C-alpha cells in the first residue's frame, strides 16, 4: 500500500517545528508502524536528508520508549498496543497519517518526535520505591501476600512509563502514571510502611514538574497500552488524603 505521512519536524527544543509531508511507498500490511518509518528514513538518508528521529528500543511493547501521536491519538488508538506493536494491517491504501510527538509542557521536544520524559524519573526518585538496602532482607515467603493483592499490585506495576496518559490528557495530567506506582507499592505489605510518605511526596513531585490536574475524563486509561484502569487514581486520591490528614 501507499501512504502519505505528515510528520512533525523540529530541530531542537528552541527551534519552531512544522509538519513535513513524505510519501511512504510499497508498504506491507505485516510491517509495524516503526518499520514503515524505517523504510521512509532509508529513502530520506539515500537522498541526503536527515531521517525522522523518534525514540524506540525494544520494539516489543515493554520498554516504553516509543511515543508517537498518530492521527491525534497517542500510540494510534488500538487497545493495549504501543506504537512499536501497531501493524500496518490496520491502515488502508492511500491514507494520510499525521505523526506528532507527545505534547505536554513537562515533556519538551528534544528533536522531531523525541521528547524529554525525565520528569517521570524525578517523580519516582521522590518516593516511588521501598526503602530497603541490598542484603539482610527476610525470606521471600516470610510474609504471605494474598493472590488478590499481589495480582492487583501487578496490574498497577505493568505501567511502562511511556507517558501516553499525559499526552492524551487535555490537562497534561500524570495521575495515571503516578497512581500506578503509588498503588503498586502501597498495595503490598512491604510497601505499606511508607505508604503515606510515598503518596504525599510523589504527588508533590508531580505538581512541581508542572503536570496538570485530573478532571477524570478517562482519556489516559483509554490510550494506556497496558490498560491501567482509572480506579488506581481513585486509590491514590484516598492514599493522598489520608497522608495529608496524618500530616505528611
Amino acid at each position, binding site marked *: 500500500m501507499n501512504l502519505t505521512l505528515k510528520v512533525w519536524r523540529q*530541530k531542537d527544543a528552541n527551534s519552531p517545528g512544522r509538519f513535513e509531508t513524505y510519501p511512504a511507498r510499497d508498504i*506491507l500490511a*505485516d*510491517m*509495524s508502524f*516503526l*518499520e*514503515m518509518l*524505517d523504510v521512509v528514513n*532509508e529513502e530520506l*538518508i*539515500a537522498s541526503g*536528508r*536527515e*531521517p525522522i*528521529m523518534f525514540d524506540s*528500543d*525494544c*520494539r*516489543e*511493547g*515493554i*520498554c*516504553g*520508549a516509543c511515543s508517537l501521536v498518530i492521527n491525534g491519538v497517542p500510540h494510534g488508538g488500538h487497545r493495549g498496543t504501543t506504537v512499536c*506493536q501497531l*501493524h500496518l*494491517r490496520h491502515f488502508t491504501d492511500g491514507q494520510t497519517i499525521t505523526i506528532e510527538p507527545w505534547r505536554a509542557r513537562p515533556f519538551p521536544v528534544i528533536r522531531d518526535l523525541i521528547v524529554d*520524559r*525525565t520528569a517521570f*524519573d524525578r517523580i*519516582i*526518585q521522590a518516593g516511588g*520505591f*521501598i*526503602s*530497603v*538496602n*541490598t*542484603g539482610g*532482607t*527476610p*525470606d*521471600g515467603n516470610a*510474609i*504471605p*501476600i*494474598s*493472590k488478590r493483592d*499481589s495480582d492487583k*499490585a*501487578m496490574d498497577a*506495576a*505493568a505501567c*511502562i*512509563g511511556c507517558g501516553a496518559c499525559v499526552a492524551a490528557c487535555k490537562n497534561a495530567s500524570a495521575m495515571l502514571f503516578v497512581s500506578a506506582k503509588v498503588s*503498586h*507499592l502501597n498495595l*503490598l505489605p*512491604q510497601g505499606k510502611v511508607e505508604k503515606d510518605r510515598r503518596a504525599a511526596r510523589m504527588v508533590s513531585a508531580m505538581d512541581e514538574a508542572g503536570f496538570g490536574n485530573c478532571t477524570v475524563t478517562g482519556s489516559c486509561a483509554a490510550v494506556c497500552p497496558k490498560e491501567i484502569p482509572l480506579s488506581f487514581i481513585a486509590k491514590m486520591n484516598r492514599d493522598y488524603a489520608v497522608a495529608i490528614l496524618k500530616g505528611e
Partner: protein
Amino acid sequence: MKLDAQIPAGPIAQKWDKHKFEIKLVNPANKRRFDVLVVGSGLAGASAAASLAELGYNVKCFCYQDSPRRAHSIAAQGGINAAKNYRNDGDSVYRLFYDTIKGGDFRSREANVHRLAQVSVNIIDQCVAQGVPFAREYGGLLDNRSFGGAQVSRTFYARGQTGQQLLLGAYQALSRQIGLGTVKMHPRTEMLDLVVIDGQAKGIVVRDLVTGEIASFAGDAVVLATGGYVNVFFLSTNAKGCNATAIWRAYKRGAAFANPCYTQIHPTCIPVSGDHQSKLTLMSESLRNDGRIWVPKRKEDGDKDPNSVAEADRDYYLERKYPSFGNLAPRDISSRAAKEVCDEGRGVGPTKLGVYLDFSDSIKRVGEDTIRERYGNLFEMYERITGENAYRTPMRIFPAAHYAMGGLWVDYNLMSTIPGLFVLGEANFSDHGANRLGASALMQGLADGYFVLPYTIGHYFVSTKPAKQPASHPEFKRVEAEVAARTQRLLASKGKRTVLSLHRELGRLLWEKCGMARNEAGLKEALKRIPELREEFWKNVNVTGEVGGVNQALEYAGRVGDFMELAELLCTDALMRRESCGGHFRTEFQTEDGEARRDDENFAFVGAWEYKGADQPPVLHKEPLVYDEVHMSTRSYK
C-alpha cells in the same frame, strides 16, 4: 597477558564465604572518596549502582536510553531461577549449580557457577522486599514454574513480565539513591571509549546524545554492564539500541574478550515475515511448559491448515528425540532440532522457516482460562504481530539470535584483564559456558550487581591503591580527540549506502556462516567477506547530519562500525574451536545422530582473545577449565 582467575582454594561450597572473609574491606568513612562509573542501567548496572551507593561510594551511572528504566533487561519474559526448593521437589544450591554447569555444556567455571547458585536465594528475598510482584498462590506464597534444562520447578515469575518487574525493582533502588544524591544519573549518554592510564581503567569518554558534546568522566573504577552483542546478527531479539561499543572499546584498550563464538539462538521467536523486519520478537520459553512443538511428518502437509493435520501425521520431534525432557529440552538443542526439520523441508508458514507450538492439548486439559491466566499477554502479543489467534490455531515459531554467553573475560572478582575495569551481567563471559539455561540471565545480572561486585570492588580499592587521575589528564584529552576524529570520519564519508543496509548485510552473512550451525569452509568465507564489508562501510557509508545535537544516524553508524570488527573475532573464535559445544555447533563435529560432539581433551578451556592492533591478528590465551566437582559427561537430555 596473564589470565589469573583468582579462584579461592577450598571446597566449592565454602569458596565464596571464605573469599568474602579474606578480601579486604574499605572503611565506611573512606568509601565516599572512591568514584565508581557504572555504564549501563539494566539489571546488572542498576543493581550495582544502587548497591554501591548504599555502601557509601560515589557513583555515576550512564545509559543511552532516556531513562534507566528502559534498559533491555525489561524485555525478559519468563522468569528467574533460584534454588529455594519451595516446591519440595529435590532442588538445592548444588542441583542448580549442576544444572547450570551441564546446561553450559561444561564450558563454564565451577567456582563462579556455584556462587551464582548460592546467591540466587538472596536475590528472590531482595526482590520481594523491594516490592516485585512475583506470582503467588492462593495461600499467599510464591509460585514457581519449570524452565528448559531442569527437572525441578525453580523459576519465579511475574506474569510474562519478569524482567520488567525485576528491572523496575532495581530502577527503584537506583532512583532512591539518585534522590538521595549518592548516584548521579546520566541518561541519553553513550560511552564511546575507555581511558586507561598506567595500565588501570581511569575513566570513560562519552557522547551526550542530546547536545552531541564529547566529554570525559574520571573515576577510581569503571563498571561495564552494557549487555550482549547479538545485534551483530542484525536480526535478534535484542532492543534496537543494544550494542557492543563499550565492551569492544574496552577490548581494544586491553581487556581480553572470552568465547565470542558462544551465542545463543533462542528456539521460540516469531518467524521473520520479510525484508523490512527490524527485529525479532521472542515468545517466552515458559510457553514450552504447556505448548507442544511439532511439524508435519510429510512435506506436503506444510501448507495445510494445521488443525486439519491428523494426529498421526504430526511429528512431535522434541518429544520423540528427547523423551525425558521433551518440549523442555535446552535452548541450543531445541533450536538445532527446529533447524533440522526445516532443512528437511518440513517447515511451516509462508517462508517454510517455522514450526508449530500447539496449545490445543493443554487447553483441553486445563481449560482456556488457565492458559490465558498463564500466558495471556504473550498470546496477545502474538496476535498483534501476526494477526492470528493462538488459542485457535498453533503459534508459528522459529529460532532467533538472543543472548551472548561470550563477553569480556573476568576473574572471580568480576574484574577484567585491565585492573579497575569490572564487567557484569551479559557483558561478561563468566557463568553460562557455551549455553545459557532459561531464566538464568536475570539471575546472573542481579547476582553480579547486588551480591558480588559490592564485595569485590572494595578489595581492588584497598589492595591496589589506585591513584586518582583528573579528567584533565592528557590521556583523557587524547582519547577524546580519537573519539571525535572517528565521529568526524563517519560524517565525512558521505557515500552511497545507509548504515542499515550494511548492518543487514553483515547480519545475513553471520547468520548463514556463523549462526545455528558453522563449519570451516563457511567461517573462512565469512572471514574473507567481513573485512571487505568493513572496508565498504568506511568508504561508502552515508551518515547524515552533524556531530552537534541529536543525531540517531550517527549513533547507529558508530555501533555498526564496531559490529563490523566484532564479527570477525566471533568467526575467528568459532573457527579456532574445533568441537561442538552448547550454542557453538560445528557440523564437522557431531555424533551419528546429529548431536554435538565435544572435545574435552583439546578444548576444555576459555578462549580469551587479546587485541594486538588493527593490522595484527588477535592472540589467543587459554584459561583451562578444571572440574573438581562435576564429572564432565556427555550432555544428554534423552
